[in-house]
């Protein structure tokens, strides 16, 4: 259970790792938008190619990236089944009893799968795989700081996220310890009816909540002892600086979107 890592940060020093987290968030959003611009088979091909290029730049083993897709396999399968069987079109491929499969359905299904895959890989490449959770919250805070004008507690939200992320491994470890202690008293978590199993969780959940509140209390005191009083006038240890590489990547991403639109316009193979 200790192998559970939040997100899937893969330590490295590639171009993608070094980008400013603020730019990476914007890039990820743009990349997702770009994936929805695709309308022809050729723009989809360009999109797939871009995902491969991103993986190569990040120097993260492709097997590691593919493993990250496993959790959404079911969603993809579901999308395929729905689209293949329910989309109505003009070119009938299979017509058997109540099953009617149209070419349009198959194409929609394929494009959906490709789109989901690319979105997952893209956000992974820009965010989860190459950015530490702490850098990510830092980026979010800075990116949304203009919203402070509207009295939105941006700093507080970012601090909450940081603390929540920091506490996840601690709580996992705590859960393991409590489970071991209750097992030593004969607790059984794996047999019995659903109701019995739910009841068996009480001896874990109560101590876990007690300790979580205790830790929260201690953390609050420790923060106050160090004069924490919100984001007002607070300086940072690491100040984010946009570099040339950040601007180049941003320009490249906008160019990529434009190229996709051009492909749609001039090479509309199997246009959807």
């Amino acid at each position, binding site marked *: 259970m*200790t*192998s559970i890592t939040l997100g899937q940060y893969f330590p490295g020093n590639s171009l993608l790792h070094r980008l400013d987290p603020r730019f990476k968030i914007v890039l990820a959003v743009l990349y997702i938008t770009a994936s929805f611009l695709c309308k022809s088979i050729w723009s989809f091909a360009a999109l797939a190619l871009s995902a491969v290029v991103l993986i190569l730049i990040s120097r993260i083993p492709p097997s590691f990236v593919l493993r990250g897709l496993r959790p959404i396999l079911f969603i993809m399968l579901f999308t395929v089944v729905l689209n293949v069987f329910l989309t109505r079109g003009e070119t009938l491929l299979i017509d058997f009893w109540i099953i009617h499969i149209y070419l349009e359905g198959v194409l929609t299904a394929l494009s959906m799968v490709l789109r989901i895959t690319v979105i997952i890989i893209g956000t992974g490449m820009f965010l989860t795989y190459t950015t530490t959770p702490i850098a990510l919250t830092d980026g979010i805070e800075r990116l949304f700081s203009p919203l402070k004008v509207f009295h939105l507690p941006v700093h507080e939200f970012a601090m909450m996220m940081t603390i929540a992320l920091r506490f996840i491994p601690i709580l996992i470890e705590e859960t393991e*310890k*409590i489970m*071991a*202690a*209750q*097992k*030593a*008293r*004969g*607790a*059984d978590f794996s047999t019995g009816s659903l109701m019995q199993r739910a009841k068996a969780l*009480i*001896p874990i959940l*109560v*101590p876990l909540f*007690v*300790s979580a509140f205790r830790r929260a209390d201690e953390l609050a005191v420790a923060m106050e002892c160090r004069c924490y009083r919100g984001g007002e006038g607070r300086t940072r240890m690491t100040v984010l600086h946009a570099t040339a590489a950040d601007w180049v990547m941003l320009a490249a991403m906008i160019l990529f979107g434009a190229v996709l639109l051009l492909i749609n316009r001039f090479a509309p193979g199997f246009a959807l």
Partner: protein
Amino acid sequence: MNTLQLEHISYLYSAGTPYEMRALDDVSLTIRGGTVTGLIGHTGSGKSTLVQLLNGLNRPTAGRVLIDGEDIWEKPKEIARLRYRVGLVMQYPEYQLFEETVRADIAYGPKNMGLSTEEIEARVLEAAEFAGISRDMLDQSPFDLSGGQKRRAAIAGIMAMRPEVLVLDEPAAGLDPQGREEILGGIRAYREKSGSTVIIVSHSMEDMARYCDELIVMANAKLLMQGSCEEIFSHPEELAAVGLDVPQITRVAELLRQRGLPLPESIYTVEQAAAALRQLMGGVGR
């Protein structure tokens, strides 16, 4: 009876991953039934891993754990039953309390054993007495107790299962001297009444010298020494080499000896030192 044997035990954490770590390396030892055995070693020497092998919370990567000559992993499905025979009190056990009353919390283990209501009640009262939990405390919420009381309530929760082997991982850590005394005294009372084997993990050489018949010294995932307190504490250099020490009073006696006082070499507790000094002074200095 209640003899524990470890045969060539090895234990790896995260085996087969880049994070693989060897916590125990070919450890073989025998803990005689009915004794109080102390397990000492520096932080990360494998003590806590070892105690979690004794009640089957962890399964050794290699080697066998035997209780009265039987391999505990012979029938993996019945490992839960073994946990009633070998009771384990983990570090900081007060954090596992969860019931509404102390009484109900102590009864959790016996209830899991499927005992009758009367039997459970009898065992709760008996365990509470060993652990020094008064009758009126039994009906309080465990979260209203003091730190030391919570610790004792948690230990009572294991004692109520009447384990033949009672294993305690740092039972007195972080308590004041009186709290330590109450807990270790309770453990001694339990052992005298039940005749069980007791294994205590501790960093306090003083407590070890006072309460243990035998000591096991672990260092760097391996067994370093096993023997009586006299045998172990007569090797101060070896202990110091692995970050351990002899009891402070033993060092005081050693320094006094160097200055010419004819004290015996086997002084490990304050009581022994006091007796020896009194004898030297001709019984006058009471």
